[in-house]
């Protein structure tokens, strides 16, 4: 009996089942390090036609043989809008490729054909797969967007009635309609200071009663603006925008986008809570915002009491802007 009891006790101990996961192994995957990279299932979408009015989100699917760095790019053939996804995985699925019709940045997608390109890379190989889709209906404007100015339905004189342009060379502070970030028009802020002065000009937008924001939480309220420098990639040293938000009680809050050194539209979404004030007692109250001033500044090419950048001589300052808005809870999605 003793023997049986002892054997039973030992049997119990030795029969314990470990809690290893199914397919568990130690260390990094050898397949990920040394395995051949190839597609297991080709790139596919939720369909070939995308209607973001009817269905709010789509996703793409593909699997490949190992965990690797991937990039999925959706490129609008007319708009040149781009939406991309990057990561390290062995598949595209609903968790990592949900698309609600938005672009990474301006410009936004239009009703157009799009090419979808998936590239997957390991240390020495890159594989590709492509797909063509068509957008029937673009995404609707996200909720809680408060457009301050999109330069579509305003004339130059009205726009500039409170604004100021310095004396300088080739000063161009006008509405343009060649390559807008959104819609047809945008506002050009361009020129060259021929004397020792940083300030080229400004655009002052009064917010009338119809456009007054509700009382929002500053930390979840975003100021959005599309900005681009010279399309020829000739960027003067230290050109930038200063944005001033004024409230009816006299408080004003500032931020800068500095420097501006890119040649295609970029959307900036800055939480209102990150705007700074010179006063410690100023309180941000979105329902009191009544004016937004956008100042175009740059290091002057003529050196003087305000400093200067010799290399900026003869280089045009360009800080074009478009689609100025506030959004609630999330940044604006082009």
């Amino acid at each position, binding site marked *: 009996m*003793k*023997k049986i009891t*002892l054997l039973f006790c*030992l049997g119990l*101990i*030795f029969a*314990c089942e*470990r809690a*290893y996961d199914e*397919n*568990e*192994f*130690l*260390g*990094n*995957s*050898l*397949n990920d*390090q*040394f*395995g051949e990279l190839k597609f297991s299932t080709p790139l596919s979408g939720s369909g070939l036609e995308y209607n973001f009015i009817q269905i709010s989100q789509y996703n793409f699917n593909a699997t490949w043989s190992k965990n690797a760095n991937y990039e999925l790019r959706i490129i609008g053939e007319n708009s040149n809008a781009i939406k991309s996804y990057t990561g390290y995985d062995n598949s595209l699925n609903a968790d990592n490729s949900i698309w609600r019709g938005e672009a990474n940045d301006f410009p936004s997608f239009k009703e157009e054909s799009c090419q979808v390109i998936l590239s997957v890379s390991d240390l020495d190989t890159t594989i590709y797969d492509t797909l063509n889709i068509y957008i029937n209906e673009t995404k609707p404007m996200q909720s809680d967007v408060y457009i301050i100015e999109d330069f579509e339905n305003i004339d130059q004189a009205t726009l500039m009635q409170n604004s100021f342009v310095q004396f300088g060379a080739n000063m161009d502070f006008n509405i343009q309609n060649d390559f807008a970030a959104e819609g047809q028009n945008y506002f050009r802020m361009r020129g060259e200071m021929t004397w020792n002065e940083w300030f080229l000009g400004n655009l002052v937008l009064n917010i009338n009663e119809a456009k007054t924001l509700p009382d929002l939480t500053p930390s979840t309220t975003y100021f959005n603006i599309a900005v681009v420098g010279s399309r020829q990639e000739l960027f003067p040293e230290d050109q930038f925008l200063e944005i001033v938000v004024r409230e009816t009680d006299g408080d004003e809050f500032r931020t800068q986008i500095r420097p501006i050194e890119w040649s295609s539209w970029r959307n900036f979404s800055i939480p209102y809570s990150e705007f700074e004030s010179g006063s410690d007692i100023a309180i941000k109250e979105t329902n009191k915002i009544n004016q937004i001033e956008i100042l175009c500044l740059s290091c002057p090419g003529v050196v003087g009491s305000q400093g200067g950048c010799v290399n900026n001589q003869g280089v045009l300052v360009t800080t074009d802007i478009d689609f100025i808005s506030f959004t609630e809870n999330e940044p604006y999605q082009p």
Partner: protein
Amino acid sequence: MKHLLSIGIFLFCSYFSIAQERLKKVEFYGKARTNLLHQNLNVEVDTTNPNKANYGHSLIDLGILIRPSNSTEIITDLRIRNEHGGFFGGAVTFGVRRLTLKGIIDDKIRYNIGDIDLKITPYTLHNNSYQTEVNEATIFSNQRSLISYENYFKENYWRQQGAQLEFALVYPNSKLQEIDFNIFTTRHNTAVAASSTPERLFSGFSVVPKTLLGNFGIHTVYLYDLKNTINDIQLFSNRAHTLSGTLNKEFFKNYNFFFETGYSKTKIEDLISNDLNEIEDYFWNIGFKTQKFWGLDIQLNALNNGAYYRAPGAQNIRLNYLTQSGVFNLISNDQVQRPMGILDYLYNDVNYFNQFDESLDAYNPIFNNTMPYGQATPNRKGLSLQLTKKQLLEGLTLNLNGHMFSEIIGVGTEEIKTFKVYQSSLNYKYNRFTIKFGVKHEKTKRDGANFEKIDLWSRQIDGGLDIKLMNDLDFISGIKIHEASGNELLLDYDILNNPFIMTPTFYNMKQVLSAFGLRLSFGSHSTLTTSYNIYSYEDSNIDYSINQFQILYKLNF
């Protein structure tokens, strides 16, 4: 407890109780040694590096045993070492190799403080043996004894610094004969603020009830960082608890059963990110010994060591395979780092670990791929069979071992490796001749895709012939052959011993070390050995050879 008749002292008590009157207050003992080596390197196309090395040393270890009282001993070993060629003592070093206070409290409890040697079980605290020998010739084992002595490798004990208590409860005329207790705490490493290393301690205890049926034991070891000894960033701890037993033949007729099973938990606490990483796992090992069949000693055992079972004191390797000798470090005109081999591991200045740490050290799969970290190697399961026949002929002992193991879960893949080891050794003594032979063949295999496939074999052969020419003069000789071919992945482990870097490595190598010499004995205490070694190494990248002449004088007093 009513049957408790007396409390006995453990193991060495008699040492103190017998003839205490005759013991001297102070005793001296020691060892002296002179070792002279001359090496000559031969390698094709090398006009830039030196090809001769001549070095050696003399040393004396003076042991002093002081008995302040009948129940207390102070033991210290002082070392004076002089590198040959040192100018007027410029190369002389002095040191203390050991300082221990030991004694008995009230004739019941034995204590050791200072340098202490500790061993519990192969799954808790165990200094695993060398991997570079099978049944080594005398000419090599003489040299290996120097390595063991220098690194405090005494059997499978670890030299630690701390305090230990040992005592026993004795139950005469009872089925439960006695219970042995062993409790210790040692200082494993000191706090180093610069490297954010906290003070680390190693504690443990072992309780072993001895009964008429057999011996059973509960063992616990605990390696842990002490909080607040520096500005802590990370704290490590590992606990291993095991239960062991041996059942004597009265329990199972003609069979001695033995087993050990246990559990470990390892924790890394990151105090910056507030993360706690834990791994835990268990093992079991069970087997039996019998002499029932054909006069053979047969031992069969099965084991299953969990992939996350960790016991740093038992999962270790003596030789630091990453070490590089300073002798002929670079060879050939291409300034290639000389691959280390069995000559370096025996004679040159390579590093042996005389302390264990929390991580699994780099191992060399061409020496031991099956159980590189000893019997407690994690992530292994399988069977071992050992057959020993003594007096097969008069003076002839033959031993055959076979091991079949596999991983429990794969490394870097779901495919698992399988390991097969065949080992045999033979000792034969006939008149003036003593022959030693050992061979170990190991094979590792893993199937799968090309990048998963592993196919590696290695073979170690040891041979030795000693001839007693005269009463005090022996001819001694030996050969070591080591070959390997195939591929393996060399692993680098992260802090939780998870292999995070795997480097594909290909082997096609052979090394041979042969030696012969004369050993002159001066009584039973001292020997003078002169030997000549011929060593050759070849792999797919480089070939070289080294000839060596050694004079080794050893004296014990």
